[in-house]
């Protein structure tokens, strides 16, 4: 999804996208039900998660699970430059794995081990907001020691306090992005800025939307005048589901999927999508402006992936050192230059200017107040709501 894969051939890129891109539906699909079986083994037990003993002082290692293409990487030398610099500076050995393809699949894999307090093999994980909320709520996250993470204060103001983690005791934002409208500028030269534009008669059967309920339903709720960050009611949520179902039944929505919607745009199977900012900006730069992205006039959603230390981590202090390192402005700028998502460290902007002035000016990497005013973070759901709402959404998409 990021800049460096542009150097590959289009076929190779398509394969990488289709296979490993973040949040991809295929990834969820590809993970055989074995993980489900394992997860099922761990059910009945309650969640009195045990917190592991910290052996950071004797074992100089830290193990980090992240999403694919989510950290600066040098194709020529095959190293992660910022990570290599951290290893040199701290004397710690970092194992970095692109182990998270999908929030649900990753949770399915580690939940059983977390519930019995057995090491999941990672000291840092990077779940999206709502999944981070689940980790914290179930006691699967360790509290960060503020003394070990002084750079915590560098985090962007809007991210410094979030509903699922008051005062950021457990987690810090890794990267964020917007969900909004993406479209093919050749087929829709006027652009897509409202829900009416998206479901215009010409787009019948040519609209693809995200299988991430918080983004798709969040955008629809905003259109219906309901703020998804507020304490909305079940009826308000179900109204959005009804609208969504109707657009599927009327044949406007062709398919509901994860990251691979960008392939539908490229193939011409979709004229317009509800998609993620980062993806569509990469498509735009690859295609010389054939695609564009806008936050809907009625509002879009803002999501974030968060670093947190799982309860089974035995290297908490080392993990804190690593987290702290990535909130240094110069380091955050290096990451932002590669990943192209919203940088969680505002002070990284002048640093990014030194690397790439054009990127530093992008409102989608360093959003201004006007942009941020248009987006909402979908509020965290209680376990009952989560089960009910996700079931309603999955039934709407035919599952």
């Amino acid at each position, binding site marked *: 999804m990021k800049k460096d894969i542009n150097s590959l051939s289009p076929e190779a890129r398509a394969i990488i996208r289709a296979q490993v891109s973040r949040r991809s539906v295929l990834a969820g699909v590809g993970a055989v039900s074995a993980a*489900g079986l394992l997860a099922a*083994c761990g059910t009945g037990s309650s969640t009195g998660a045990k917190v592991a003993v910290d052996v950071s002082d004797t074992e100089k290692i830290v193990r980090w699970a992240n999403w694919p293409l989510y950290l600066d990487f040098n194709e020529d030398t095959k190293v992660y430059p910022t990570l290599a610099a951290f290893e040199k500076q701290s004397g710690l050995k970092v194992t970095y794995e692109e182990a998270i393809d999908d929030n649900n699949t990753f949770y399915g894999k580690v939940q059983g081990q977390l519930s019995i307090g057995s090491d999941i093999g990672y000291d840092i994980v990077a779940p999206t907001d709502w999944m981070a909320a689940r980790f914290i709520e179930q006691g699967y996250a360790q509290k960060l020691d503020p003394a070990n993470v002084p750079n915590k204060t560098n985090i962007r103001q809007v991210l410094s306090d979030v509903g699922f983690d008051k005062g950021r005791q457990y987690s810090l934002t890794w990267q964020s992005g917007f969900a909004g409208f993406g479209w093919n500028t050749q087929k829709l030269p006027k652009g897509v800025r409202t829900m009416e534009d998206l479901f215009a008669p010409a787009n019948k059967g040519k609209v693809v939307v995200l299988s991430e309920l918080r983004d798709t339903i969040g955008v629809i709720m905003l259109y219906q005048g309901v703020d998804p960050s507020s304490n909305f009611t079940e009826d308000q949520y179900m109204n959005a589901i009804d609208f969504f179902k109707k657009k599927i039944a009327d044949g406007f929505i062709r398919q509901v999927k994860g990251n691979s919607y960008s392939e539908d745009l490229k193939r011409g199977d979709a004229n317009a999508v509800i998609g993620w900012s980062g993806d569509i900006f990469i498509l735009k730069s690859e295609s010389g402006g054939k695609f564009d992205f806008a936050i809907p006039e009625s509002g879009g959603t803002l999501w974030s992936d968060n670093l947190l230390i799982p309860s089974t981590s035995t290297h908490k202090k080392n993990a804190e050192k690593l987290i702290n390192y990535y909130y240094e402005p110069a380091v955050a700028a290096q990451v932002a230059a590669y990943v192209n998502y919203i940088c969680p460290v505002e002070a990284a902007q002048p640093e990014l200017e030194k690397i790439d002035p054009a990127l530093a000016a992008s409102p989608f990497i360093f959003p201004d107040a006007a942009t941020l005013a248009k987006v909402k973070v979908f509020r965290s759901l209680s376990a009952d709501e989560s089960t009910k709402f996700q079931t309603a959404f999955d039934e709407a998409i035919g599952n």
Partner: protein
Amino acid sequence: MAFLHAVSSGHSATKNVLKKRSLTPYLLLAPGLIWLITFFIIPIFSLASTSTMVRPDGAQVGVYEQKLRFANYVDAFVANQDQYLRSFFYAALATLLALAIAYPLAYAIAFKSGKYRNILLVLVIAPFFTSFLLRTIAWTQILADSGPVVSAIKVLPFIDDLFRINNTSTAVVIGLAYNFLPFMTLPLYASLERIDPRTLEAAGDLYANGLTTFRKVTLPLSMPGVVAGTLLTFIPAAGDYVNAAILGNPNTKMIGNVIESRFFAVVDYPTAAALSFTLMATILILVTLYIRKSGTDELV
């Protein structure tokens, strides 16, 4: 003395042989048994126990209690019967389509390919060298709205401008038939290839024409292949969810998609487990009936 000694040692030797013989089958079975117990029996029990659990009100996501609620099965089936019926319908269509393609193909390879036989067989298996997912994704390119197939069909008169194949039930059935084609072709080939050419000659000597020979000799002799091929295609196709997820739309989801969604997205393990069991049981019943009917005991 020597005689006695010989007798007794002979006796103990027979005993040893007997002892060894009684252990050998178990030793031979051990790897398979251990495998089956670890990866089939234990998960099956875990799945069975999960299927009757209930989510206590207000419990965290993914926490379930054993309440032996067998009504889970009824609820899960009633809520998802459309996807159930659709799965078996699509799987049956895909099996017929695969049979229609694979039979002539296997026939040609077995009887008409000459020196190209091995190359053709390799070509049948070749798709297995790439990932199942990638091959399915490739079909989305072939069947794209502006791709070769749809463009060619649109040249015909009376074709609606909105005509498409991607994200339709047609695409799902095509995908299923394609993905399981080798499972149909290889058993057919194996049984066709085993046919003694002299039986065909004999049919000719008895004044049977080509069609009659096929109907009265070739087809009946190839029935074990037909039964094996249709089973090997139908069973995985009925449980498949990749084709419906990639090539389908929200109205073409199969039961596999529902199970996947309940396991991972909704984290409703009991429903997913109950659906898995119902699917397994239905397939088992269908297969038993089919084998009874076709009378090919040698297969099982």
